């Protein structure tokens, strides 16, 4: 790993006018650079053979109203070669919001810049297709700006509509669905998606291609994804995803809650890996507050997350098989999934939305009988996995429809910021559980399955997911042994500023009572600054950036979601294949639309 000083010295040598404004906080480095040198610095960081910051993980912004310059534009770079992260910050004032687009260097920035444009109103010059991505095109304002209201509807405690109705804004007619067809004129790599340009009606396409709209209501798009397809006969010429049909405003809502009360919002983001959403947010806040987590809580977190990974991969494999026509695998996968959900219910009382992790540990101790239930599950699972493989691995239809479909290379995956099983299928050995261990993953013995062929395809991703489930079972087995050793130890930190005291203490200690009261009424106030935590979710790197302005509510919570980046690969990985293959390809990316749209 190249020391930071060397990196900076190299940078200064190349760009003498770049300021030396370095912000170090909680072990993360943020380098502030003027916007004119953004492209040059980024290109240098990417191409220098010693540095190789070749993956752009995230682009997001912070709004520091009423300060000027108002916006901090943050680019998170990752170098897998030296296992280092660097954040570039470009400061943008409210009267000049034009920033050069970074898409020529990192094509994966396309969706991210559109998101920042949509939610913050920062304009990226020379962006290939700068349109709103999450909100409908006819909406006004940029909701994540601090001067934009939350936009909620007051809850009325009346049953008489006449009393409420005069205050309601006038109704507008719904836009016709016809207008929602995407424009297809453009190069195949960039993704022109959005509302149709009235200047280019359908008849204006001079080629033999045909436009087909797929979704947002389609049984095989795994949610409310819309794909505008340009097809030549049965062959796909271009497939352009259009997202935002499940945009929930979670990041905005979180700014109006205390840190603790925001936890349940995030369960519903990636609803197949709810524990990961909780975990990454808790890790980020713990990093910000420098809270230590007791060992028992860490082990419980690992076990529950790995159970969740199995559950998520079960649905991924099952729904992929169903999309291709093997419905039986889906029903079998759901059979096993129910058993995982029984364990979750035992732990937290909820089948899916557990909200079980708290800052510094867990909400409650693990219930009696937890270990037995998990042990029964991991004993049952290996033969069941073999059952799926018996159904699929030698099935000629399955192999015919997955091998060699949606081939993509390692370089493409890295350029688009793809993480998770999709990246590992190309042969990159990159798993955050190994590369940047959290929650004590370094103490577990497990392997990271990696693709062996030159190019990844649908079949390879399937094999990786099956193998990951087996490795998860190994981790859970080791976790149970550790859990038995920590019986009776604390499950949450004893830092009373973030974790409530045990209920019985309230009867005897005035101090505990005060802590309890302060926590539930006001919450706690982390120091000013921002921290980023990342976990390896079933879909890839799930990151959370929590920014604090010193109050009891987050200044900004931003999620770097894996589905959002992985979905961007759809145009080029589906190019040239049949329409019927597209459902399998979408299933391979294993996107969760709640994770994409947030």
């Amino acid at each position: 790993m190249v020391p930071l000083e060397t990196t900076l010295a190299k940078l200064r040598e190349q760009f003498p006018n770049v300021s030396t404004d370095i912000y170090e906080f909680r072990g993360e480095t943020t380098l502030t650079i003027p916007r004119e040198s953004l492209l040059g610095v980024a290109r240098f960081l990417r191409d220098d053979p010693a540095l190789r910051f070749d993956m752009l993980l995230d682009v997001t912004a912070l709004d520091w109203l009423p300060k000027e310059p108002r916006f901090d534009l943050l680019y998170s770079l990752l170098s897998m070669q030296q296992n280092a992260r660097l954040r570039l910050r470009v400061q943008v004032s409210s009267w000049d919001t034009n920033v050069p687009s970074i898409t020529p260097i990192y094509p994966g920035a396309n969706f991210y810049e559109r998101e920042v444009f949509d939610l913050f109103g920062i304009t990226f010059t020379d962006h290939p297709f700068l349109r709103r991505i999450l909100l409908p095109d006819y909406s006004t304002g940029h909701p994540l700006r601090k001067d934009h209201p939350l936009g909620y509807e007051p809850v009325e405690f009346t049953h008489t509509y006449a009393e409420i109705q005069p205050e309601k804004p006038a109704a507008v007619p719904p836009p016709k669905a016809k207008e929602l067809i995407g424009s297809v004129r453009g190069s195949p790599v960039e993704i022109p998606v959005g509302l149709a340009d009235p200047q280019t009606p359908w008849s204006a396409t001079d080629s033999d291609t045909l436009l087909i709209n797929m979704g947002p209501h389609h049984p095989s798009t795994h949610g409310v994804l819309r794909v505008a397809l340009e097809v030549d006969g049965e062959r796909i010429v271009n497939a352009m995803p259009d997202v935002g049909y499940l945009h929930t405003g979670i990041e905005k809502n979180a700014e109006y809650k205390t840190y603790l009360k925001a936890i349940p919002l995030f369960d519903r983001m990636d609803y197949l890996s709810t524990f990961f959403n909780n975990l990454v947010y808790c890790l980020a806040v713990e990093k910000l507050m420098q809270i230590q987590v007791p060992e028992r809580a860490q082990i419980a977190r690992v076990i529950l997350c790995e159970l969740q990974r199995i559950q998520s991969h079960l649905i991924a494999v099952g729904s992929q098989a169903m999309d291709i026509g093997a419905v039986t695998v889906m029903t079998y996968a759901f059979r096993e999934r129910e058993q995982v959900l029984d364990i979750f219910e035992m732990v937290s009382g909820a089948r899916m939305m557990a909200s079980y992790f708290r800052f510094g540990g867990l909400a409650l101790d693990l219930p009696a009988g937890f270990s037995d239930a998990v042990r029964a599950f991991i004993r049952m699972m290996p033969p069941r996995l073999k059952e799926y493989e018996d159904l699929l691995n030698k099935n000629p239809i399955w192999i015919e429809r997955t091998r060699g479909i949606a081939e993509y290379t390692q370089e493409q995956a890295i350029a688009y910021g793809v993480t998770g099983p999709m990246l590992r299928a190309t042969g990159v050995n990159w798993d955050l559980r190994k590369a940047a261990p959290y929650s004590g993953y370094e103490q577990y013995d497990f392997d990271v399955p990696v693709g062996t062929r030159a190019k990844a395809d649908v079949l390879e991703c399937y094999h990786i997911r099956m193998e990951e489930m087996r490795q998860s079972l190994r981790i859970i087995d080791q976790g149970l042994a550790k859990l038995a050793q920590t019986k009776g130890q604390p499950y949450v930190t004893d830092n009373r500023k973030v974790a409530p005291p045990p209920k019985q203490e309230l009867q005897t200690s005035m101090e505990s009572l005060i802590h309890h009261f302060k926590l539930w009424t006001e919450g706690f106030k982390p120091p000013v600054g921002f921290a980023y935590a990342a976990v390896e979710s079933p879909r890839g790197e799930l990151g959370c950036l929590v920014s604090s302005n010193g109050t009891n509510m987050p200044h900004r919570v931003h999620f770097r979601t894996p589905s959002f980046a992985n979905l961007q690969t759809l145009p080029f990985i589906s190019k040239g294949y049949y329409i019927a293959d597209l459902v399998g390809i979408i299933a391979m990316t294993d996107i969760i639309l709640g994770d994409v749209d947030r």
Partner: protein
Amino acid sequence: MTAQTIKPENIPVAAGGPETKSGQAGVVFAKLDDVVRWARTGSMWPLLFGLACCAIEMMAVYMPRFDLSRFGMEVYRASPRQADLMFVAGRVSRKMAPVVRQLYEQMMEPKWVIAMGDCASCGGIYNNYAILQGVDEIIPVDVYVAGCPPRPEALMDGILMLHEKIKNGEPKGQIRIEGFGLRG
């Protein structure tokens, strides 16, 4: 001669012997409306349509453990033209709202809607700029199922409640505030 009115659920089930097939089981009189309503509850075709987290629980309902086909409901239809029941399973964003409305309008009469979960019923925990505060702002809802997400048993209870409503001939649901959800 007085016609005897028998409610469909009270129709005696024939033993299935040869006399049944030869028409010897006797004659049953009932109001045509009652028979039609009873028949409708036995063959509902829901729209294969999910939005968010609740859609996963909706899938769980027709999977082996909960097995919705016990109630004659397992035939999910991807085309709204073939469906007569819509589960609004999840939060409805303002971008999605026109699509949901159009899907509803494409369904054939008679049609019913179940708002599954808190988000579809009232907006749930997301009271903000992006989410419709209840899908009944754009389409009429017959049954609301609470929960975040509702357990599969809760959804099945909602379905049976809808069956009861249909059998009893209760009036259909209403749009809460016409057009309000589509203000953009």
